[in-house]
């Protein structure tokens, strides 16, 4: 047996975006075992939501759980609160929610892709991807009035309407982005130096993915066709606007890149369909009811299935709010994916998991 070395990575490390601690046990550069600690940024948001804030204010609080999937959190909370106060939201609000979720998915996936490129040592591609991402940040700013904390979904509907000129701006930007996306697909698919770090790295089999309960692009890259947008139809009409599932087979970093690029393509189609067929109706359903009973909601955030549970007791303040973020489901598989890889490919693998720890630790 060769000598084993323990290499700690994190909680602050140059290749990490967020506080996350890995301890790798290596044998001659090969990783044989890993342990992970992800709960560095606990902020007590769930407790705050059940004690300090009224249930209508909570949708703004949970928007601050995560910067990248802010809209997924607000929408999931709004839906769970709407279930508790038993109202149906207008059709236009549903479509606008889907529009912002998809734009958010594009910018989140581009961020993840750019970090994979950067951590694989391809800085020029990182800058290129970030440059294309900027267009979507501006679109989100034009729709929601803010770049990151959208506060777009509120209990009962959406906060702002989509102006016709903003809709036109989105269509123009998407038209401009299409050749840029083709260029990105070409580079991520065919670039030789990127393939050295990406192909075969961090691979996880379909069987393992199913056993370890993986969600999101991570699972879809391994060939597991799970997507909440494919499974639920009651709250947001995903299939109506042209949703299609994208899956890979290999389950490595390369497959994850391809799944993310494919999903950007699907998201663009969904956005176009939504803007072309945006129904006319009110934006908010007004009600003075108080939350009562229990409800759960699942929604597909950029990183996978986001789960919300809420319990009300006929007062302004909720009795319990539980958030299960997608990264939480993926931790066990994240640890599994490192086994048998070279230590040098670790940064790229971590980036390709797209871990969101402020979501996980809340």
């Amino acid at each position, binding site marked *: 047996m060769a000598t084993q070395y323990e290499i700690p990575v994190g909680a602050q490390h140059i290749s990490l975006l967020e506080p996350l601690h890995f301890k790798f046990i290596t044998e001659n550069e090969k990783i044989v075992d890993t342990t992970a600690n992800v709960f560095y940024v606990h902020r007590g948001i769930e407790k705050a939501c059940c004690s300090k804030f009224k249930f209508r204010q909570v949708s*703004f609080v949970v928007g601050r759980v995560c910067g990248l999937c802010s809209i997924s959190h607000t929408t999931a909370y709004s839906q769970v609160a709407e279930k508790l106060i038993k109202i149906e939201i207008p059709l236009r609000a549903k479509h606008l929610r889907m529009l912002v979720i998809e734009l958010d998915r594009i910018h989140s996936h581009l961020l993840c892709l750019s970090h994979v490129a950067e951590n694989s040592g391809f800085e*020029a591609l990182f800058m290129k991807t970030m*440059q294309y991402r*900027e267009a979507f940040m501006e679109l989100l700013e034009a729709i929601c*009035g803010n770049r990151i904390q959208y506060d777009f979904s509120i209990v009962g509907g959406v*906060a*702002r309407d989509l102006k016709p000129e903003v809709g036109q701006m989105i269509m123009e930007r998407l038209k401009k982005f299409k050749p840029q996306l083709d260029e990105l697909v070409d580079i991520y698919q065919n670039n030789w130096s990127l393939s050295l770090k990406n192909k075969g790295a961090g691979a996880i089999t379909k069987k393992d993915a199913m056993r370890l309960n993986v969600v999101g692009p991570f699972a879809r890259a391994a060939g597991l066709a799970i997507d909440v947008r494919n499974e639920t139809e009651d709250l947001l009409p995903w299939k109506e606007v042209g949703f299609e599932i994208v899956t890979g087979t290999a389950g490595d970093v390369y497959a994850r890149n391809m799944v993310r690029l494919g999903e950007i393509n699907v998201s663009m189609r969904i956005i176009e369909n939504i803007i072309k067929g945006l129904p006319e109706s009110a934006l908010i359903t007004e009600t003075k009811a108080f939350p009562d009973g229990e409800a759960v909601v699942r929604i597909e955030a950029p990183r996978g299935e986001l789960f919300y549970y809420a319990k009300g007791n006929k007062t302004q303040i909720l009795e319990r709010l539980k958030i299960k973020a997608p990264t939480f489901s993926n931790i066990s598989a994240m640890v599994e994916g490192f086994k048998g890889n070279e230590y040098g490919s670790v940064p790229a693998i971590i980036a390709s998991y797209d871990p969101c720890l402020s979501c996980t630790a809340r």
Partner: protein
Amino acid sequence: MKTFFKALGNLFKKPVTIKYPFEKTYIPDDYRGVIEFDENLCIWCRRCEMACPPGAIVFSQDMEGKQTYHYNKAVCIFCKECVRNCPKEGAIFQTGIPARFALKEDNINNGWNILYDEALKSRDAYAAEKKRLAAKKAAAAKTVVEK
């Protein structure tokens, strides 16, 4: 190799970044900016204060019953919830002006917390005073009736 030549070609292209302090960045015309308040239109129902998620609005009250509006730009999250909850249109509204960052001299956290508590206390004091006056008036009326 293709990527390499493309990267070389980028040397001769215009930069995509914006030289921020000298050039203007993109700000949409309905940007979520600072909240403004119109004292003449307000009906003093305090619904904006009740709705505000971070507690950036508070009303203080003096002994004559006159209310004063306090607003903290640094605490505000510009969610427009106060405007949506306002029953009187135009009394409180959102401008497109981005908020200036707060400096240490502004004493934003500590100063605001003290102001917030004092405002709540001033309202309690006014309510207690009103109650006392009402009780006094009722007692006086009672004595008048007895006589």
